[in-house]
């Protein structure tokens, strides 16, 4: 005797099966990245490599590249660790120095990491605001705890923002293990505002951005003033180049790649002058290459810091301890 299933389910089942099969067949092609002519590059959200650049790489090498965006630098690194038995790509680009040791200590990276670009986490201020309030603009981390600058500063929370973590590292480098917590208590007493992310701080609270907020000092990057050039040809903002923390972004071959040669070629490509010259444009970072020149607006308004601090700190090893201490001040 045949067992009958209601017709309604059969129709739905066939529809469902069709959709699922489509899904599976559409995914099928991606598993062929093991071929030597295919390369999957894992990058974080903010990495920009244009189609034209990829086409040029393909022309030079015959290798087709697939970019996989994998969240912010932290999410991406942890994704790589979680998936290391079945890696999601052949190489990674965009792991920064605060997460690099997570990747290396978990054996995600085969060989060494190569530095590709960097950015400096620096305080920015609104020149217009300080001019109209007849107050001298701040020039150092020390200034932020002076009463003249009470309630003027907004920074990102190091627990939730990589920019914030960079600044925390800068404060440790500047004031040492013994002094950095005292500095943050003083900042708190001086009514510093803490925001969760860069976009809240920069666009909602900073007075020098298009969001026109109420705080004339913000934690951002040394490159940001290049994007606040007004009609008069001047930038409305400037960076305080003392006490900056440098975030360096690396590329590395992923353990388990089946295209080691292709991955190495891609890293060479990232270090080529042509690609390096494009970095300030689309990625808002500085190229590591000394031979390429910066765009005019960068040279004028957004030079990198001369002497960034905190280079020798192992941020990853200290992250938990620092964040715990920081949170107990602001919790």
């Amino acid at each position, binding site marked *: 005797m045949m067992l009958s299933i209601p017709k309604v*389910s059969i129709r739905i*089942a066939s529809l469902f099966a069709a*959709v699922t099969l489509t*899904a599976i067949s559409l995914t099928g092609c*991606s598993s062929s990245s093991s071929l030597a002519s295919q390369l999957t590059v894992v990058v974080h*959200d903010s990495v920009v490599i244009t189609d034209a650049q990829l086409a040029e790489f393909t022309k030079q090498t015959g290798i087709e590249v697939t970019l996989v965006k994998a969240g912010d630098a932290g999410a991406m690194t942890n994704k790589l660790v979680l998936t290391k038995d079945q890696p999601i790509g052949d190489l990674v680009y965009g792991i920064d120095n605060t997460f690099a040791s997570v990747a290396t200590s978990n054996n995600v990276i085969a060989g060494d990491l190569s530095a590709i670009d960097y950015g400096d986490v620096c305080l920015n201020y609104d020149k217009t605001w300080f001019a109209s309030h007849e107050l001298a603009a701040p020039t150092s981390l020390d200034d932020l705890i002076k009463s003249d600058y009470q309630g003027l500063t907004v920074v990102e929370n190091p627990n939730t923002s990589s920019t914030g973590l960079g600044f925390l590292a800068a404060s440790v480098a500047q004031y040492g293990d013994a002094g950095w917590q005292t500095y943050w208590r003083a900042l708190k007493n001086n009514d510093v505002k803490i925001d*969760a992310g860069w976009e809240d701080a920069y666009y909602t609270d900073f007075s020098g951005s298009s969001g026109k907020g109420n705080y004339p000092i913000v934690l951002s990057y040394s490159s940001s003033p290049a994007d606040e050039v007004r009609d008069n040809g001047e930038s409305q903002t400037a960076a305080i180049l003392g006490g900056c923390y440098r975030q360096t972004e690396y590329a590395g071959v992923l353990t388990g790649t089946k295209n080691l040669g292709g991955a190495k070629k891609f890293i060479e490509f990232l270090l080529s002058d042509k690609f390096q010259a494009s970095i300030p444009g689309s990625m*808002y970072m500085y190229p590591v290459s000394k031979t390429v020149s910066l765009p005019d607006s960068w040279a004028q308004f957004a030079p990198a810091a001369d002497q960034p601090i905190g280079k020798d700190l192992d941020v990853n090893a200290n992250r938990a301890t620092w964040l715990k201490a920081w949170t107990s001040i602001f919790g």
Partner: protein
Amino acid sequence: MDLDLRLAKLRRVSALLGGWLIPAGFIGLLFYFPLGSILLLGFSGEFLGVLGTPIAVAAIWFTLWQAVVSVALALAIGLPLSYLLYRRRFFGSAFLRNLMLVPFVTPTIVVVIALQPLRVLPTWMAILAANLFLNLAVIVRGVGSSWQSLDRNLDDAARLDGANGWRLIRSIHVPVLRSAILSSASLVFLYCATSFAIVLSFGGGQIQSIETLTYYSLTAHLDLPTASVLALVQTVITVVVFLLSRRGDVAVEDLSLSAAPLASRFSVFAVWGFIAVAFALPIGQVLARGLNAQAFDWLNSLGARGLLDITVWQALANSLRNSLIAASLALVVGTLVAKLSTRRPGLRLWFVLPLGVSSVMLGFGYLVAFGGEPLPLRSSWMVVPLVQSVLATPLVVRGLSAALDGLPRELAESAATAGASGWQIWRMIELPLIAIAFKNAVALALLVSIGEFGSAALLSYGKQATLPVVLFRLISRPGEQNYSMAMAAASLMIIFVFAVVTLTSAGKPKN
């Protein structure tokens, strides 16, 4: 004879099992399997110790109290509003009803932008206010649609007995509406308990909820034990809320309606005033910043200095495609579950759980579970619509179950006796009767997928980025062009949401 009976029973059971196969397979493969994979990675000796850490305790406590207070406030403000908007008639009431729904289905990134003025408030107050802004419509609509269809003759009869005003509402309306109130209140509780962007942005990262702590445990610290324990706690909360609200899952379908009486002039002013300040003003602020020729001109670009991989328009197309796929799947699965579970409402729990699980957790689950053969889903663009269909399914199940449970069972039974097939009964009898609930479910599924950010940010490819992902990318970089484009994209989203809400709520139900 005896054999026939047993065969008939066997046939019924197997038909039921066959029907369940699809939804069970769907939710099992796309939700429980990836979630289980990531939870398993988190199991270790220190597993339960996590619950004792001060930061976890604080996050759980904050999550619970802010959700409870938000629900209480939403009821206190939402019930009177619901009465006026659904039980009284006045100029523009339909417009106001639709406007209130906009925040609920708009991506929370946009909501956070719209609510910037709240940031002058103390943190906890801003979070509560934002919760209200987002969820008030759930109470107003959920209760309102039942209230609307409450028989007015009942009121007249009660009035003859001398009951009036509050007494009428308390003794006649509230008992009938209890189920609708319970059901919408529990939904608001779940949304507040799992809100991410609101807590993060208004809390400055200094207040953690279960959801935000899960996110940072995963993305910043790779602390799987903490993330797994928190995900389990969230699951337990969802189960408890579901069980509490189950008695409430009966709604009355709109069978309206004789014309509602006119509202008093005072209450018209009050409602218009409240909604203008609390809803129109913040939404209007985003539109004011986004709707200008320069910003729309920029929308054809890739952002200042080529920040984006695709234009906002292409992202919009991706979002629309994803949401069509996600909504279709969610509707198929949700409808099956709602239909098959009328006699076993407890089974719905299995399909409602995605409401209470962090989409980032689920996203990581996909990464671990669908890495290689036989289902290398994580490297396909289909992964985002599939996750979104899982997240939309609970809303379809809830909406349709409530409506189907309210139908008299004899209808389907007599049609079946007359020889109608299951499909015919659904198509000719049940669907027309629950048309409004079905339309609402379609709209909700579409909009939830359009606005989903957590998994899309984690799983979508460069060229496959959705509108919320692109919007976030734009406001993560300095410069007037990027900011203006973000505002224009946010405005587009608001307009789209309002259009869908207005279109799907237009028209009168068939009697």
